[in-house]
């Protein structure tokens, strides 16, 4: 029996391969994700452990919370007088002090060098203590006063050479510096597109505006002294607001943020792999079902020879198991290739990921194989059940139909219940609390809805094919009419084939509708709020920039009002919140809707005033006069009094939950930064004013002047990049469904060999035969697209109804594009099966038994 199953697989190579592709792609995504993220992870780990390799203890500023990398909040540096004290400790062999900055840009030809969203790192280097130096010189020399070393990747990309002069800007104005050397960071050639700028300590301190201060001290213990002992000794002289850790602990601490990013990337990509596998499961169910229908005679013969139902079922499951194992192994290795490809892809777009070689963990192998095999086995369950219903008498009866199963008549009600249950879970999820509960309910609900709708759609196939196939009958003539009838004749099969595509299209429609909602409400919000003439942000639209930019902008000739919004993090009521601060001028350049208080509040916040958004006020029962305690990054706490409550526009608030005055903010935050600055001119928005503003900002290449329209477009462009990534990832599941259509068509052509032979014999040309198959494919794809798009709109509608800051906006263009994409999928899927059908020799086809 086993050899029978295995040999059966061999004789059905083509359909097995086509079915296996559905699993291979999903597994490849899963394994590729693991390989990619593990490799990045390992590379980062090696970077961080490289930095601290000879360090037994580190001293860093202590803050009440971890400030995020690009949040606008920097931790307070400590006084450099600590360094000689540390050096004087009996067990310290050597110690080094350093400063660092995450916004140190190279300015070339008046433009900041930046790759994607990668950080621009600046730090001090001390070649005199090579044991602490994780940089290695490739060319030139270590930097002297007012000199800089550049990392090799940036130097290569920008054609920078030793001896050349380049602009460097950190906190202050741009300075021209000589490049003294080109460096490499440990063994890694690049860190995700980050630019590295190294200076000697005094230069770095001046550039970063940290004169007389340090961000970190690294110390090495004398031989025989344990890190713990060293740490204990350092603790005796540790000033307040600093902390000491072992080198290893510091490496882990530094790696936290990248670890979070990598873990996010991992789950994000895995989600799409799982979606592809889910779609793949549909393809498998469908392919196996058709195959079993076609093998009715063979299975019945087995039954007459004494095979039990169990044996028949096992043979189908075994077939699926073998296919699942093979497909998963292929997928696993394809994933390795995929990870390599992604590294190259990221490299090509300038976001070079750290790469120390591809890493295949045991976990990757186990999870990928297990997922692929389990999904295949589950998908084979129903076809296997079908196979057991083949009666032995089918061995002697021509065209014996499978008897309907015991539960056949419950199928539609069951599907309806499943769909309803799915929607129920979705709604329940929307009203639940706790991210994991909400996510779990939403995912489960969506899965049930997909399965339910796939089963439910079969009775509607005749009507849908009738409507969506109408153009085919007009374009394709007789072939088109035949195609439409073919699509209708096995509704369950057409429904399952279309269902695979439906899932992908429902998800892209969901994404597109949400994006359209976000865009529309964002435009609305900006139009309401933005009462200035120009906005100034960082070149990348979202990084915080030094506050000196806002001050310089305010001094441009003709400016009547200017306001800046500071951004950063602090503890509010003990929770880490995104907080903002405004300069008094904000009241003239930003208009918001006040539920309590007025525009004037923005100008009169004073030393202890704050305004909050409505949601936050409701959560904490705040009214005018309520007290709000805040703890800043320095560890200092202050209580603020609520002076106003505003209603954030749908589309997003320009402020955090709590906003205080910029003056107070600047006093409590080392190196405060602005998210944006808005400026109003006497003559309004015109070229002369723009030129004046740009002139006054000429010293800040990272500052970008934008009109209202440009500001909206730029802010949305970030969303568009995210959208494009989502579309590309969802395209994967659409490709899987494409193979599903190919498979169904190949099997259908095989099944209709005799019929196609007859049609050819009575005069259907090869061209018409191809056209007939192609139209059937397109009709199937259109059914999938139609159901998917409708479902996607419904799902998006549900979400939008729940989320306050979104409005429903019909993504017309996208829906048209998706429908066209579905037609293209249909045409592509038909190429191979149509050729096979057209190649059939009419005479042989008629002889075919």
């Amino acid at each position, binding site marked *: 029996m086993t050899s*029978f199953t295995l040999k059966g697989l061999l004789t059905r190579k083509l359909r097995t391969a086509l079915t296996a592709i559905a699993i291979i792609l999903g597994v490849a995504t899963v394994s590729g994700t693991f390989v990619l993220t593990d490799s990045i992870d390992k590379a980062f780990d090696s970077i961080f452990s490289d930095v601290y390799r000879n360090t037994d203890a580190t001293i860093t500023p202590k803050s009440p919370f971890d400030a995020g990398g690009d949040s606008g909040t920097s931790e307070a540096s400590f006084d450099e007088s600590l360094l000689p004290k540390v050096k004087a400790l009996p067990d310290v062999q050597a110690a080094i002090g350093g400063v660092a900055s995450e916004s140190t840009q190279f300015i070339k030809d008046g433009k900041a060098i930046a790759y994607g969203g990668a950080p621009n790192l600046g730090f001090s280097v001390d070649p005199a203590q090579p044991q602490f130096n994780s940089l290695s010189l490739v060319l030139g020399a270590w930097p002297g006063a007012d000199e800089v070393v550049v990392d090799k990747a940036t130097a290569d990309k920008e054609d920078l050479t030793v001896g050349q002069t380049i602009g460097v800007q950190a906190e202050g104005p741009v300075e021209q510096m000589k490049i003294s050397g080109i460096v490499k960071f440990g063994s890694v050639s690049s860190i995700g597109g980050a630019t590295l700028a190294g200076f000697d300590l005094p230069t770095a301190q001046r550039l970063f505006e940290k004169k007389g201060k340090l961000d970190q001290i690294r110390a090495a213990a004398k031989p025989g002294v344990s890190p713990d002992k060293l740490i204990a000794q350092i603790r005796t002289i540790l000033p307040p607001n600093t902390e000491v850790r072992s080198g290893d602990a510091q490496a882990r601490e530094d790696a936290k943020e990248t670890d979070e990013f990598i873990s996010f990337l991992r789950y994000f990509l895995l989600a799409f792999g799982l979606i592809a596998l889910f779609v793949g499961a549909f393809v498998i169910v469908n392919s196996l079902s058709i195959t079993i229908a076609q093998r009715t005679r063979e299975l019945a013969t087995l039954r007459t020879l*004494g095979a039990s139902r169990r044996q028949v079922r096992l043979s189908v499951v075994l077939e699926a198991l073998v296919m699942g194992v093979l497909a998963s192994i292929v997928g696993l290795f394809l994933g390795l290739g995929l990870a390599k490809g992604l590294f190259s892809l990221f490299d090509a777009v300038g976001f070079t990921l750290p790469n120390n070689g591809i890493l295949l963990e045991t976990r990757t192998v186990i999870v990928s194989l297990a997922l692929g095999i389990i999904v295949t086995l589950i998908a084979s369950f129903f076809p296997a059940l079908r196979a057991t219903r083949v009666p032995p008498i089918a*061995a002697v009866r021509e065209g014996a139909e499978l008897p309907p199963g015991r539960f056949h008549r419950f199928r539609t009600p069951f599907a309806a219940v499943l769909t309803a249950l799915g929607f129920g879970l979705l709604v329940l999820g929307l009203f639940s609390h706790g991210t994991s509960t909400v996510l779990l309910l939403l995912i489960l609900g969506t899965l049930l809805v997909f399965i339910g709708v796939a089963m439910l759609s079969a009775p509607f196939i005749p009507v849908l094919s009738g409507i969506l196939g109408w153009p085919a009958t007009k374009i394709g003539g007789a072939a088109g009419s035949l195609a439409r009838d073919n699509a209708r004749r096995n509704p369950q099969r057409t429904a399952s084939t279309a269902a695979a595509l439906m899932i992908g299209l429902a998800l892209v429609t969901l994404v597109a509708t949400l994006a359209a909602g976000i865009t529309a409400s964002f435009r609305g919000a900006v139009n309401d709020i933005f009462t200035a003439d120009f906005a100034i942000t960082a070149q990348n639209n979202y990084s915080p920039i030094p506050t000196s930019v806002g001050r310089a902008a305010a001094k441009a000739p003709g400016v009547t009002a200017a306001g800046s919004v500071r951004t950063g993090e602090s503890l509010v009521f003990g929770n880490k919140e995104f907080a903002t601060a405004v300069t008094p001028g904000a009241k003239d350049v930003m208009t918001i809707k006040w539920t309590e208080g007025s525009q004037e509040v923005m100008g009169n916040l004073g030393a202890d005033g704050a305004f909050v958004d409505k949601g936050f006020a409701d959560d904490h029962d705040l009214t005018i006069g309520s007290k709000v305690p805040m703890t800043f990054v320095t560890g200092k706490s202050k209580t603020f009094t609520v002076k106003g409550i505003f209603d954030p526009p749908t589309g997003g608030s320009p402020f955090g939950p709590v906003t205080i005055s910029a003056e107070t903010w600047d006093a409590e935050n080392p190196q405060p930064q602005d998210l944006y600055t808005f400026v109003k001119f006497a003559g309004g928005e015109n070229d002369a004013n723009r030129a004046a503003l740009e002139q006054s900002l000429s010293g800040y290449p990272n500052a970008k002047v934008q009109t209202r329209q440009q500001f909206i477009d730029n802010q949305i462009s970030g969303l568009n990049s995210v959208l494009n990534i989502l579309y590309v990832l969802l395209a994967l599941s659409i490709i899987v469904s494409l193979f599903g259509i190919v498979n169904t068509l190949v099997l259908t052509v095989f099944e209709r060999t005799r019929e196609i032979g007859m049609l050819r014999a009575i005069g259907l040309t090869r061209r018409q035969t191809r056209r007939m198959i192609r139209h059937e494919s397109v009709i199937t794809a259109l059914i999938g697209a139609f159901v998917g798009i409708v479902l996607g709109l419904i799902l998006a509608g549900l979400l939008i109804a729940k989320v306050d800051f979104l409005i429903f906006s019909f993504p017309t263009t996208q829906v048209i594009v998706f429908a066209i994409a579905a037609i293209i999928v249909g045409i592509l899927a038909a190429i191979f099966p149509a050729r096979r059908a057209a190649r059939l020799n009419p005479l042989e086809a008629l002889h075919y*038994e």
Partner: protein
Amino acid sequence: MNENGTVVVARDVTRRYGEGETAVDALRGVSVEVPKGRLTAVMGPSGSGKSTLMHILAGLDKPTSGSVTVAGTEITTMKDSELTKLRREHIGFVFQFFNLLPMLTAEENIRLPLSIAGEKPDKEQFAQLIDSVGLGDRLSHRPAELSGGQQQRVAIARALVSQPEVVFADEPTGNLDSKTGAEILELLRHSVEEMGQTIVMVTHEARAAAIADRVLYLADGQIVRELSGASQSEIGEAMEEIAAR
């Protein structure tokens, strides 16, 4: 097996397809005894119910009323698992379209019933079987590489390999030319003579029925005549008479 030497016994078997006005009575009270070690042919014009009778005798279909015993056991009330066991141990099939599994070699096809039952063939007996069906050098070929006659030989060997109480042959020559058909009939006859095999063969060809020990004629769902040891021409004449009624 019954003591009186009958392998299959059917009593008052009726079979109705469909319901109400469109109902068709394929069998209207048929009683048959299949004697051990004999070849019984069932003849009749198309639509006479001869195939239905065979399907019911073999447990592939269930009668509307009446009883059928195979090897002394009532089969009409059997569950699927019992019928599976019955087919495994007591029944062999030969089909008009051979029904060989295309991915298996001739030898694997022959062994299939045993491997389904989880048994190993007795080497000597297997060799003898191969020898008697005359397939010696074609054993490693797949069905697609065999002629129709060779395929039917494989099918016969497959039906005989588990030494069943009874073999049901459904138009075994229906898809073969007359020369090959004759060889196949000879082989079936041989298995009766030499091995004492019991065979029930459904056919509409007098030539095929001529090898039978006994010929039953079915018309309109009833047995209308029975001949024993008749020649091909007698069988043919009887057939024509029945068809002309």
